[in-house]
């Protein structure tokens, strides 16, 4: 009896396919923005800055929906702590700082530098960490 209950809990706290796609999608999007920022920083070619802005906007959309899934999962858990909570906190941090980074990228021309580049590094690291924790979240059980 008790084993089947823990197995159920494990199933609910692990991201499903849609949740996984949204969550994992944030990594290449934030990383793409970071790489574009590096390219702009090194080349002064404005198009890289445009790419970074749109990649970030896409990343925020993915991150925002992943956050929604993560929150629902967390609320459905009996014990709202440990890794599932860490995952939500990391993802929330990614989203909020990502939004700050979006506004930073909305400045004109070189006004975004170097802050945009620094924010992109931070947000990319956070997105990877959140995804890592999110995809390895287990509350126990036989899976």
């Amino acid at each position: 009896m008790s084993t089947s209950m823990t197995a159920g809990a494990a199933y609910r706290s692990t991201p499903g396919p849609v949740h996984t796609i949204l969550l994992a999608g944030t990594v290449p999007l934030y990383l793409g923005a970071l790489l574009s920022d590096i390219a702009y920083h090194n080349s002064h070619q404005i198009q890289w800055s445009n790419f970074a802005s749109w990649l970030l906007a896409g990343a925020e959309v993915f991150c925002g929906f992943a956050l929604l899934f993560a929150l629902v999962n967390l609320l459905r858990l009996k014990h709202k702590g440990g890794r599932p909570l860490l995952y939500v906190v990391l993802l929330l941090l990614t989203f909020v700082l990502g939004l700050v980074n979006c506004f930073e990228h909305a400045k004109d021309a070189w006004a975004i530098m170097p802050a945009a580049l620094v924010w992109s590094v931070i947000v990319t690291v956070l997105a990877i960490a959140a995804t890592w924790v999110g995809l390895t979240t287990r509350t126990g059980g036989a899976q």
Partner: protein
Amino acid sequence: MKRLTPIALATAALLLSACGEKGASTQERGADPNLPAPERGLLPSMKIAEPEAWGSLTPTVPQGFTVTAIATDLKVPRQTLVLPNGDILVAEGKGGSAAKLKPKDVIAGYIKAKGNTKVKGGNRLTLLRDADGDGKYELNTVFADKLNAPYGLAFANNKIYVANQDELVSFDYQPGQTKAVGAPSSIAKLPSEINHHWTKSLAVSTDGRFAYVGIGSNSNITERGMEAERDRAMVWQIDVNTGAYKPYVTGIRNPTALAIQPGSDKVWAVVNERDELGPDLVPDYLTSLKEGAFYGWPYSYWGQNVDPRVQPGDPKKVAAAVKPDYALGSHVAALGLAFSSAVMGEAFVNGVFVGEHGSWNRDQPVGYKVIFVPFADGRPSGQPVDFVTGFRDADGKTRGRPVGVTVDPRGALIVADDLSNTVWRVVKSR
């Protein structure tokens, strides 16, 4: 665009609530403005006009003057021209084809559009006539249409010169004519790719030989790349007979109106300067144009103040940058310029009228009026005085936004208003 609305509104609310830069309620104006250090929070300050109908109200004019609407329901009137017989031509249009390059452009474009008219630009010239001199312009007819966002207007050599957003053209003109005969002839193509700042201002030299055309920059501060700025931020001198052109001055961000100083060959301009350096930077300005001068854009502003947003910079260009003559205040958006004359009465005989469209990039709105800048010895002298006000009330309700101003030799100032789509006539009471 419809689907974006909730996101755009949410972002707009966020943008407005998070703005910290307040700015002074009165701005530094004149020949030697005190410039603060640049500032830019995470979000730029924005305060958009809330359009409201005039109803029975009219703009406020100085004592001894009266104001009447001589044409309403126009299609985005910008600049006006008074012909020798007293007829008034109105250029109506809305240009620009700048792509939205960043998410910011989508959001800012949506927000800014709320402060403008919803009417589609007419791409035409309307002729207004007051045949009996009673101050009512009973004839309101289309002089020419199918133009491409016409803006600058001038009369010389028995021709009407029109600066479309992509081409300088001319119409042959017989006194009394109310409709153009056929299509205009082309004088010169004007730089029109992207056309972030699309308004092509125009003045013709006293001898009728040269047209001066103001060509705005293709960005606020090179955020569309330096390649987009070829042949931009300049005033061209164009030989009206051959179409041959050369840059007359450069580095002049957005010269939105040009005028020839009476009794001289001096070209004057009002120029809109760059945004997003704070509420009290960078002053829009009024200046006489010195042939060959470089006015700083994009590398520096008001002389040698380097703009770090432009990389790589150009110290040589910065060193060569010329200071403009007279600051009008930051973000006022000066779009109209006309030299006054004796017909405007003693208090306003010597100086220029400047139409100020009004700010969007400032927490405390500025502009939204027509001012008079007094001159002495052929140069601006002293502080400006308000001439036409009442376009925007304290609650932010905005009934009009002045653009072009023209002095009518019959004794009036003509003011185009592109929010209420009205042409106002300010007359000295007898």
